[in-house]
């Protein structure tokens, strides 16, 4: 085992999946010779050839569309959209076709594809490079939506995504690509696509989060513990299907819930979690649910991105509010 970054874990999982199944192939812009702009596919074209690691023309709608066609024929395409801000032309194909091919044909045809994309702010990137579009995909029936937050979870979840018989949207937080290293065993063991990860146990409040906000939330938990407040930190990881049971059990135990996400607040995925808790665990709550999210603004350019993204400070403030409410 060796300590690797999240982006190296993505690379490792892709190589593993391609090695174990000849029908897995990769396509996207600059993923071959260049190894992807973040190097997620580094070395894979040299190893698996140009037929299985395709440098496509610059056409996101086309990339998603040909992946649907490939998947319908039984291949397992893993398509990369270079930045999440460029994912929107692909949404047509994902919503109108990938998500419903199985349903439309009563199971005669399926769409076992993965659409990978970096996402999120915090790396001083140019315009349209910092989006968090997970809620749009989570809203669409027929899709799975995954957002890993550590190298080990990226490895296991991506392997599961490639092997899954249905379309999976796999959103990789750019800020975490090289933020920290972790031991990852290249053992081919996948992680479940329908389970939250309990990262830290606590008694006073449950903080539910995913993706790039996980390290911030864990840092907030450390600081809060110094004040004598212990929180449970849940990494949702697979937004859809949502493992609400793990979240409900935790909320029933702590009585307080804070939901943290980087995407804008309105109709963000936090609203879905809050609604589920309200429907199914309202009487366990000692305080109103609190959301700490990106503001309802266009994700700003680099100078203000830190003021847009939930900080450790804002998360601690959110937890204190639910603590003070009861």
């Amino acid at each position, binding site marked *: 085992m060796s300590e690797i970054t999240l982006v190296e874990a993505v690379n490792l999982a892709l190589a593993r999946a391609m090695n174990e199944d000849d029908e897995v192939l990769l396509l996207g*812009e600059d993923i071959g010779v260049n190894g992807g702009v973040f190097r997620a596919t580094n070395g894979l074209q040299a190893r698996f050839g140009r037929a299985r690691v395709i440098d496509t023309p610059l*056409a996101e709608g086309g990339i998603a569309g040909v992946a649907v066609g490939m998947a319908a024929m039984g291949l397992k395409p893993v398509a990369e959209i270079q930045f999440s801000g460029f994912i929107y*032309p692909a949404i047509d194909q994902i919503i109108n076709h990938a998500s419903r091919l199985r349903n439309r044909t009563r199971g005669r045809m399926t769409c076992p594809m993965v659409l990978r994309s970096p996402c999120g702010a915090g790396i001083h990137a140019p315009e349209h490079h910092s989006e968090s579009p997970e809620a749009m995909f989570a809203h669409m029936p027929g899709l799975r939506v995954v957002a890993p937050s550590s190298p080990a979870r990226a490895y296991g979840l991506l392997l599961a995504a490639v092997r899954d018989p249905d379309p999976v949207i796999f959103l990789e937080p750019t800020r975490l690509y090289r933020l920290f290293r972790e031991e990852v065993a290249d053992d081919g063991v996948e992680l479940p696509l329908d389970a939250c990860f309990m990262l830290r146990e606590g008694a006073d409040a449950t903080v539910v989060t995913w993706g790039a906000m996980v390290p911030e939330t864990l840092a907030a938990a450390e600081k809060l513990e110094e004040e004598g407040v212990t929180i449970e930190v849940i990494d949702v990881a697979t937004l859809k299907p949502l493992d609400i049971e793990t979240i409900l059990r935790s909320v029933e135990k702590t009585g307080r819930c804070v939901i943290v996400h980087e995407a804008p607040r309105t109709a963000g995925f936090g609203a879905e979690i809050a609604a589920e808790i309200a429907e199914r665990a309202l009487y366990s709550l000692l305080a109103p649910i609190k959301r700490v999210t990106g503001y309802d603004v266009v994700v700003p*350019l680099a100078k203000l991105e830190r003021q847009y993204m939930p900080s450790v400070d804002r998360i601690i403030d959110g937890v204190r509010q639910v603590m003070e409410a009861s």
Partner: protein
Amino acid sequence: MGSMEMGFDLNVDFVQLLSPSGEISKAASASAKDIDRLVRFYRAMTRTRTFDNKAISLQRTGQLGTFASALGQEAIGIGTAAAMEERDVLVPSYRDHAAQFSRGMSMSECLLYWGGDERGSDFKHARGDFPNCVPVATQAPHAVGAAYALMMRKEDRVVVTFIGDGGTSNGAFYEALNMAGVWKTPVVVIINNNGWAISTPRELESAAETLAQKAVAAGVEGRQVDGNDVIAVHEVVRRAIEKARSGGGPTLIEALTYRLGDHTTADDASRYRDPEIVRAQWTREPIARLRSYLVSEGAWSKEQEAELLKACAEEVDREVAAYLNASPLSSDAMFDHLYAKLPDSMQWQLEDARRFAERKEHGDV
């Protein structure tokens, strides 16, 4: 279109008036050889290159975000902008500051944009020009829509837009060109074919012999021009603009150039292309080519060159200072221009952002 028997002769011409070694073509008109104008072109291209060098060094020293240089592609922007009237509309991609500087965008505005500050897109001059467009090809339909608006209002203005070679692989490009052909909008679409879409070479973008011929399927005139020949770019774009202005409809111009630098400062082109090819392309670049011609005509001296470089460096330094001394942005800036008026229901978010911005320690991971 009535005949049962149909065929089509594909005809895409290629225009070059100044050879790579700086020899003028016999086909160049007297007006194209106007020496005062060519000196202005030379100055403008040099100004852009001086800026690019500085911007890259600012990025390398942590004073600028990711930056896309126009190195080697200056002639396209300078020749094009010179063919436009001030009242015309530029719809840029994200590597078009050569044209934008000629249109009045300041260098400090360009730096603000790449430095992560939206104020860089609030041009003091050329206020009718569109902001940079990063999602590749999405600007092409905007140009056609803008041209339609001008046509509908019978305004004597045309729209000029830029797109890269990779951009022509994108559906939005074909859709835009198709609409422009149907509606005969006064728009000139210029392909900056610099050979590379990040790491993807031109031949992996399209099997078409030329990109200009993509015009044919849209019923639009397509032409190729040597994009490193500012005289030819100016001539070809000028004619296309005249045609558009007189109701003749759109033109697609493929300007052949070469990306001498990396895609952006976030890219390392040595990973995917042979430095020998790049070295060979340096013999074709636009500035040395025009200088060679001006010198041979007795219109440019070493003294003038030294003065120009000094003046460019001074201007760039002034603009860099203006950029670095820009007033700090408050968190309110995220909300100020979100809507004409911030909805009352969002006021608390603005105040929340302020509350945390005022704290010194953000506690980021």
